[in-house]
């Protein structure tokens, strides 16, 4: 089964292919199984949300996909290339925005840094940085430092940095878990907006069911630890989404109930293959 997984033929537009991914930690010679077996595909241009109960190993999953952790087994491929270290063209927005921005660099320098690492020339760098900051609505704070901004604005900077990088895929790890509700709604719309306008591919990890439905085209529900995928739910909401109307649609309510039930089952310890 694992063998057939790893040699399975890749359909042409699959961007991220995850096959039987496993991760086991050693804590004081005690193996802890964080991720048991994950298999899913993400196609170019998708916006996929991963939702799961807290402690479901969401962060471990994301760090493995980002190449920051070496998985214990299985594989993750970006454009057919095995991910063993952070691959080219992958951007990550972390939950801890205050810790992921360089406090000694200005906003503009933070956004331009990955471009500089790629050897992009100064003029292009400045242009792309300005455009990205413009896109997240922060053009006027380019010369400030991250710690001079509010939490929501700092996360916008992190988003601008990811966008300016023009990634093939953007991973987001509970990016809005630590900001207030109003800011959070604004940021969600910003993500939808950027995804639309720039044709990004986004994998968005969250513990918030409403957020996952509002944002995603697809929601993957994770089980409890050791993590497996419990369900893959298509979100058939209209493409034009709005905080007020979308969240009041009957379909939204139905999906919320469905995902909510799955997450409750996950918390109760249901495994894939169990009778629902």
């Amino acid at each position, binding site marked *: 089964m694992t063998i057939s997984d790893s040699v399975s033929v890749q359909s042409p537009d699959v961007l991220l292919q995850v096959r039987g991914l496993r991760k086991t930690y050693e804590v004081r010679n005690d193996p802890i199984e964080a991720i048991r077996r994950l298999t899913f595909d993400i196609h170019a241009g998708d916006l996929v949300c991963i939702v799961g109960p807290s402690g479901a190993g969401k962060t471990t999953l994301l760090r493995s996909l980002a190449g920051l952790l070496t998985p214990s087994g299985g594989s993750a491929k970006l454009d057919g*290339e095995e991910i*063993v270290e952070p691959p080219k063209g992958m951007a990550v927005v972390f939950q801890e925005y205050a810790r992921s921005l360089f406090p000694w660099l200005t906003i503009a320098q933070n956004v331009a840094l990955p471009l500089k690492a790629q050897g992009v020339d100064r003029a292009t760098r400045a242009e792309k940085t300005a455009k990205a900051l413009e896109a997240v609505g922060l053009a006027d704070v380019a010369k400030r430092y991250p710690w001079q901004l509010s939490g929501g604005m700092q996360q916008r900077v992190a988003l601008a940095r990811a966008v300016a990088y023009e990634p093939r895929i953007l991973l987001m790890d509970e990016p809005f878990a630590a900001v207030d509700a109003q800011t959070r709604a604004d940021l969600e719309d910003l993500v939808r907006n950027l995804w639309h306008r720039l044709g990004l591919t986004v994998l968005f990890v969250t513990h918030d069911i409403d957020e996952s439905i509002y944002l995603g085209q697809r929601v993957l529900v994770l089980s409890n630890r050791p993590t497996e995928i419990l369900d893959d739910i298509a979100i058939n909401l209209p493409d034009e989404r709005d905080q007020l109307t979308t969240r009041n649609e009957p379909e939204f309510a139905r999906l919320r109930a469905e995902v909510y039930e799955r997450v409750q089952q996950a918390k109760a310890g249901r495994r894939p293959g169990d009778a629902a």
Partner: protein
Amino acid sequence: MSNNVATRRSWLWFLWTPLNAVQRAWAGVAGVVVFLVCLQVLPLTGAVDPKHTPPLSEVISALVSRLATPQFWEALLNTLTTWGIGLGISVAIGVVAGLLIGGIPVVREFTASTIEFLRPIPSVAFIPLAVLLYGTGRDATLLLIIYAAVWQMLIQVSYGAQDVDPVARDTARSYRFPKGFTLINVVVPTVLPYAVTGFRLSASVALILAITGELIIGTPGLGKLIVIAQESGAVASMYALVLVTGFLGLAVNVIVRMMERRVLHWHASVRREGMK
């Protein structure tokens, strides 16, 4: 390409992997063994001039024969006495002055500039004066020790006194606690962690200057023995004495840290030491 990346990860990977406590301890032991072997072997192979650096075995035998002489123990006692008296006086001055400066805002305001000026004056600048006033006696070295060691204590205690929670102070006042009670229950617990840090810094500075005073001024003690050994060409013996000063410094650090832990075991912020 992906192959290339994979090999780059494995190259020297072991340097960056985290260790558990047992592995750390073994690595430390290995480091010390390698260090000692180098001290023994390098002079024997002629990589360094054995006339200037005798092999470790010779230094150890010189140390053993030193340990058998009463002069050594007398010198050690002298060094410890000078250090102890100097540290005691420094701590007394530092605590009193630190409480006044930190506790009374007006005093702090008007002494800040003077302290900023006096502190960077190197205490060893007073060596000629100390020699003229006290000859080669202990008092000459004490002068150096006190001028150097007082600052650490004074500044830490004054930070501590400034840090006394105004709410706690007001509470004490509103409940009409007697002055002595306030001191013991409000001021002491706040100042203590700072004072302990100051004590540790003062203790090691005092030891350095005790031995320096013996070295330069000729106050009786280990420093003076080192000079005598050097002048009489007893190279191995000189190294032996230098090792002793190293162990003395190490012992001071370890003992003070143990005291620190005992005194502050109830204090949560022990591990997080202030920047300044």
